[in-house]
């Protein structure tokens, strides 16, 4: 078996650059470019010290999330060489290239190709390809930039490397060095027992791994989702009803497992493997973690119609890629008796952990009681929100929450319907309209408008309205920290007016007159 290992970092050869991050109140260098490294700056050096060494050092804040995203991208990109790619440490990638090298014209050609392509992406890597992961790690970190070592010569090739090349902890490496064991080769001849007695097996394990005496498997990248169930059919199925039945079985199994783990899914992917080798995937989301099989089946029911079984489906996989903790309390849906049976099984298991009110459910139905009482306010509508969200889009099922602002259009925030609850307190103040126009609409004022009052009549959408009563003005000035072109006209005087039929409107006048001395009127809201 042959394995390779690459080690990559961001590189900017032009100038000394260091990435810095703040840890425990001081700013520390986390990564350095070649030029900076040559000037003697190393990671974990305080920025003040680094600046003293090299005043011209350019710094950028470290962005661990971007680094992780880049590493994830490289991982999936490495799929071009082998399906077995796994992350290593913070900046490395394991590739198990067993049986892959010949596709690229040999091992050397493959490594060259890898490093060249990485170079084109602006990255520089070090790679080593050899028989064991341990040796590959040692060679890539402490050997040449690109080395290939045959399995039989591993022993000799890593003998000259420092002991820390064996992936030992800093303390262990230091301890070995103090004993005069500086090179890997120094350990070869030592008796194992005293070594283990002194260094708790770590040294001999790492040595054995490097030399291939102990197997060290590499698990592939992108581990399949933990909550994933599969159903294969002896004969391909094609009817929607059959798919639905299969889905129900899968959901039941998945929800059982989620229940045992006290988790709920936020997303579910159903994949159909068709006989011609193609895939069909349909996903549903939930606004809160859920594991009620009946509820989830309802969410899928809307979507199953879009699936095309083609010449038949030979297997189905249901996966929950996104799960969140879900105790026994939450799920309460107005679902069928079957789902209740499922749930109570789960709840019984989970009950000792939390004193949930689920036990009362049997006696007291969630719907309104026949005695005429109003329904309880805390009824759970998240299953409904899920169904609405999956058909209309979760961005279209919303709630309104107040926001600190004097500008009418900023005083309301649209939030996902599921997220908010609890107290909503609107700023007490002047009356606000029931509906706010997305954009204020320009009004034609018919008669001369008094300097400080509303117009006697206006025309809006080709209908003339004669004012009967008016209340105002309420002056609202733009907030200087918001750059909103809608408020370029400056402060506004708002009026609540009523026309001759009793309809009410929310008008405003731009306070600052225009060049010809007139000021414009707009309609901003309606009271019906």
């Amino acid at each position, binding site marked *: 078996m042959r394995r390779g290992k690459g080690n990559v970092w961001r590189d900017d050869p032009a100038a000394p650059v260091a990435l810095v991050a703040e840890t425990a109140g001081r700013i520390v260098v986390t990564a350095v470019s070649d030029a900076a490294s040559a000037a003697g700056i190393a990671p974990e050096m305080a920025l003040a010290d680094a600046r003293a060494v090299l005043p011209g050092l350019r710094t950028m804040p470290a962005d661990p999330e971007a680094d992780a995203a880049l590493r994830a991208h490289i991982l999936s990109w490495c799929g071009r060489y082998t399906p077995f790619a796994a992350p290593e440490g913070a900046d490395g990638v394991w590739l198990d290239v067993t049986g892959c090298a010949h596709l690229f014209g040999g091992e050397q050609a493959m490594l060259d190709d890898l490093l060249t392509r990485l170079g084109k992406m602006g990255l520089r890597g070090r790679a080593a390809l050899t028989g064991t992961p341990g040796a590959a790690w040692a060679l890539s970190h402490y050997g040449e930039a690109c080395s290939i070592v045959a399995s039989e010569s591993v022993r000799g090739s890593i003998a000259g490397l420092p002991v820390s090349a064996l992936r030992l902890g800093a303390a262990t490496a230091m301890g070995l060095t103090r004993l005069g064991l500086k090179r890997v080769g120094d350990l070869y001849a030592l008796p194992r027992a005293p070594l283990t007695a002194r260094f708790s097996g770590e040294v001999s394990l790492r040595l054995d791994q490097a030399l291939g005496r102990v197997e060290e498997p590499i698990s592939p990248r992108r581990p399949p989702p933990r909550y994933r169930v599969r159903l294969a059919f002896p004969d391909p199925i094609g009817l929607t009803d059959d798919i639905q039945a299969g889905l129900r079985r899968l959901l039941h199994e998945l929800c059982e497992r989620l229940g045992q783990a006290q988790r709920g899914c936020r997303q579910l992917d159903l994949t159909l493997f068709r006989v011609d080798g193609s895939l069909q995937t349909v996903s549903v989301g939930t606004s809160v973690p859920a594991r009620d099989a009946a509820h989830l089946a309802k969410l899928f029911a809307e979507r199953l119609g879009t699936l095309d079984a083609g010449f038949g489906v030979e297997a189905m996989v249901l996966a929950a890629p996104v799960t969140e903790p879900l105790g026994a309390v939450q799920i309460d849906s107005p679902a069928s008796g079957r789902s209740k049976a499922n749930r109570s099984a789960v709840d019984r298991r989970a009950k000792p952990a939390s004193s949930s009110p689920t036990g009362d459910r049997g006696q007291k139905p969630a719907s309104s009681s026949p005695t005429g009482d109003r329904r309880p306010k805390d009824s759970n*509508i998240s299953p409904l*929100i899920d169904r609405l969200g999956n058909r209309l889009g979760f961005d279209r099922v919303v709630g309104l*929450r107040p926001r600190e602002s004097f500008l009418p259009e900023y005083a309301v925030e649209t939030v996902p319907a599921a997220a908010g609850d609890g107290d*909503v307190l609107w700023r007490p103040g002047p009356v606000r309209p029931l509906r706010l126009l997305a954009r204020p609409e320009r009004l034609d004022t018919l008669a001369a408008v008094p300097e400080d009052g509303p117009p006697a009549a206006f025309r809006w959408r080709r209908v003339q309205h004669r004012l009967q009563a008016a209340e105002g003005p309420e002056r609202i000035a733009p907030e200087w920290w918001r750059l909103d072109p809608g408020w370029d006209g400056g402060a506004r005087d708002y009026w609540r007016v009523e026309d001759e039929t009793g309809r009410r409107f929310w008008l405003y006048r731009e306070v600052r007159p225009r060049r010809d001395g007139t000021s414009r009127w707009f309609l901003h809201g309606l009271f019906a």
Partner: protein
Amino acid sequence: MLKQRSNALIDLRARIARLERGETDGGRYPSMPFDIPAIDAALPGGGLVSGAVHEVTGSAAGGFVSMLAGRADGPVLWCVMARSGADLYGPGLAAFGLDTDRLVIARCATAADMLWAMEEGLRDPGLAAVVGEPDRAVALTASRRLQLAAETGGGTGLVLRRGAGKGDLSPSAVFSRWQADSVPLLGLPDTARSSIGGTRWRLDLLRCRGGGGGMNKAWVVEWCDATRDLSLVSDIVDRPGAARERQRLAG
């Protein structure tokens, strides 16, 4: 299996027969009283019946429906068309008593989505009220579906048809039909015009199942933002002079 199905059929037929006779399912759901005896007396069950769909038209339908939804005790789903150009505004809804902590807004792209969302909402027993603002009249079959869904779920359905007048009322299976128009404040001296005060609506109960056939009931009510209170201003009984009075009110 076959027997089960025929039982279900019999059940359904009985229910349809009851519906056609204009009965509800025996007062299974409570009603929301207006707390105004004159109006409550005209309504079966002494208030706006829950577990039923009510249609509201007229120039002040939005405010009236917000108030009704605000009186429902529990979560409210409000379905709007996504491209209506005028969004519901939280502080304004709160002024009519509908607090937004229990409001869910569904923005529907098509009329079909709207009806579907309303039906889903009405069937859910967790909701106290479902408001729908379709951009065209709800067809007879669709209204029947909504009414059945409301009977299943027990919430109050409110179909809001802004701007629609008496003229374009199509046949519908809704439980009651209302027209809510704004009423101008008249007879006030000019000095009082600097304040426009409470909101006045003229409510016409155009049709209501079990509410005394063909009776046309009308009231003028006033909503006070500050006290969140609805009070009766005048009681307009359908009599020969009513039309004149309406004219007078409309100015």
